[in-house]
């Protein structure tokens, strides 16, 4: 296939790359999807809950898989917990409104899920006019982009070179190729990225369902604030079919400036009184980690396209952090779709120049991806107030402790409880007022 030119080469078989490849193959484009792992997804890590309808739109076959889905569980119960060292306070919401396809969110294990996505891309290829000429190539690491006359026109992997009219960079956050052509800064500042560290614990499925009160395919997601010793970030626990994913997401700049060690932080999270009993009867079956953009719009390159190339997903820093959860996978898939649609138009015009591929960025701006990112920047900066990761969770727990305390003494009125808790924290009423006003405005 060396001397065959592709319409488009997609670098990276994660959710963004698979989504782009699927849309391209469905529209009869001649493509090459390149993944360095053993299979699509084999090197990928998410929490992870994949939210919203985008995956169901790009991969409508998903709804025929419900007997044995490539995802784990649909999420119809969401918990947000505020942790102090010895207590936790949770908001818990469950609704049958989330019980129907397309689900509001599904938990996924990426090595399984992305593998299925890759298989779907192959099926779409098989149905296209290029059944013999389009490929999904695994265990191929792209080392370099081929650039001629300032235009990206292919890839090099070892001795092999492949040419194409354009390249979609779906290589994830460790975006060496995107950086090599200046679409992203060569050095991405630590303040824009976090490290996610994760364990998967497996259970007998009945035990898991009893422990987490699950019926059938339903599942629960739980995010935690206050479990990171003051470091920017939080914890997560998601139920899979017969396992749970739990871990921490920790801002790399804060980590650097602290004295904390990532696995010790994970251990202390797992030792917390509200987590430890959940692990009983389970077995740790996988340990993983991956960097993730923190959701700061300033990390996103001003220009997501150049002559012959566009950048999508984490490589472009497209992660939404609303404080309730991280949305990276759905944004990655949507950006992959918008890139594919722009390239289909470019092919019709036979124009893969910068000016033509700009339509990708225009489309993205009009989609929920950039709209949500713009609308939630206030929320992002609000929750990135350092007090949010320690002082406020401590304050909430200190109040709740007194609310529920029965100690043989005269009970305190709620007003006095709050006053005492605030006096004992190093937060002032001014901090609280400022925070509640900012919170009200931004969330």
């Amino acid at each position, binding site marked *: 296939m060396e001397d065959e030119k592709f319409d488009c080469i997609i670098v990276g078989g994660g959710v963004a790359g698979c989504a782009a490849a699927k849309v391209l193959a469905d529209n009869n484009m001649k493509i090459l999807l390149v993944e360095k792992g*053993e299979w699509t997804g084999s090197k990928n890590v998410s929490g992870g809950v994949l939210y919203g309808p985008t995956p169901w739109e790009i991969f409508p076959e998903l709804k025929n898989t419900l007997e044995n889905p490539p995802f784990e569980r649909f999420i119809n119960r969401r918990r947000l917990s505020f942790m102090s060292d010895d207590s936790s306070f949770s908001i818990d919401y469950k609704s049958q409104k989330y019980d129907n396809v397309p689900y509001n969110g599904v938990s996924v294990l990426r090595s399984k899920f992305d593998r299925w996505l890759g298989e779907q891309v192959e099926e779409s290829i098989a149905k296209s006019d290029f059944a013999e000429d389009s490929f999904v190539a695994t265990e191929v690491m792209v080392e370099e982009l081929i650039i001629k006359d300032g235009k990206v026109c292919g890839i090099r992997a070892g001795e092999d070179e492949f040419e194409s009219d354009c390249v979609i960079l779906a290589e994830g956050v460790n975006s060496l190729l995107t950086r090599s052509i200046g679409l992203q800064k060569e050095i991405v500042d630590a303040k824009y990225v976090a490290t996610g560290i994760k364990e*998967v614990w497996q259970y007998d499925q009945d035990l898991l369902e009893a422990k987490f009160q699950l019926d059938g395919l339903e599942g629960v997601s739980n995010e935690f604030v206050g479990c990171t010793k003051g470091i920017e970030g939080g914890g997560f626990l998601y139920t899979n079919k017969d396992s749970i994913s739990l871990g921490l997401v920790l801002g790399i700049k804060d980590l650097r400036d602290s004295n904390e060690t990532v*696995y010790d932080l994970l*251990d202390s999270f797992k030792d917390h009184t509200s987590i430890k009993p959940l692990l009983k009867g389970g077995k740790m079956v996988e340990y993983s980690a991956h960097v993730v953009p923190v959701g700061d719009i300033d990390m996103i390159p001003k220009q997501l396209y150049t002559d012959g190339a566009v950048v999508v997903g984490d490589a472009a820093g497209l992660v939404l952090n609303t404080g309730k959860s991280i949305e990276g996978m759905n944004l990655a898939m949507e950006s992959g779709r918008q890139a594919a649609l722009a390239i289909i138009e470019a092919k019709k015009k036979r124009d893969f120049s910068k000016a033509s591929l700009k339509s990708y960025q225009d489309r993205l701006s009009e989609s929920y991806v950039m709209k949500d990112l713009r609308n939630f920047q206030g929320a992002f900066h609000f929750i990135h107030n350092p007090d949010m990761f320690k002082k406020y969770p401590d304050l909430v727990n200190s109040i709740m402790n007194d609310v529920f305390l029965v100690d043989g003494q005269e009970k305190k009125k709620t007003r006095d409880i709050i006053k005492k808790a605030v006096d004992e924290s190093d937060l002032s009423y001014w901090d609280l007022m400022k925070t509640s006003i900012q919170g009200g405005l931004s969330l």
Partner: protein
Amino acid sequence: MSMSVKDRLATNKTKLSKKPHITVETDICDTTCTHKCTTRVCPAKCFEIVNDKMAFQYEDCIECGTCLHACDQGAVSWKFPESGHGITFRLG
């Protein structure tokens, strides 16, 4: 509940390349770097101080990218393992 990093890593499958994909200029670690943060932030414990000197090994690396972003001293040269090598997660 606490498990050693080695034991945790033993749950993974890695096809080791003979060529290190990450190299570290340990002179920088041993001289100008004051925080040595990679010894704390690498989830696979690839950076360790042994006899007061930085010792880096790539064999346990799970390709997360943390050191690529955490080192602010320019000591880390970071690449992915060559085609067909490195970590494979069964679950991910």
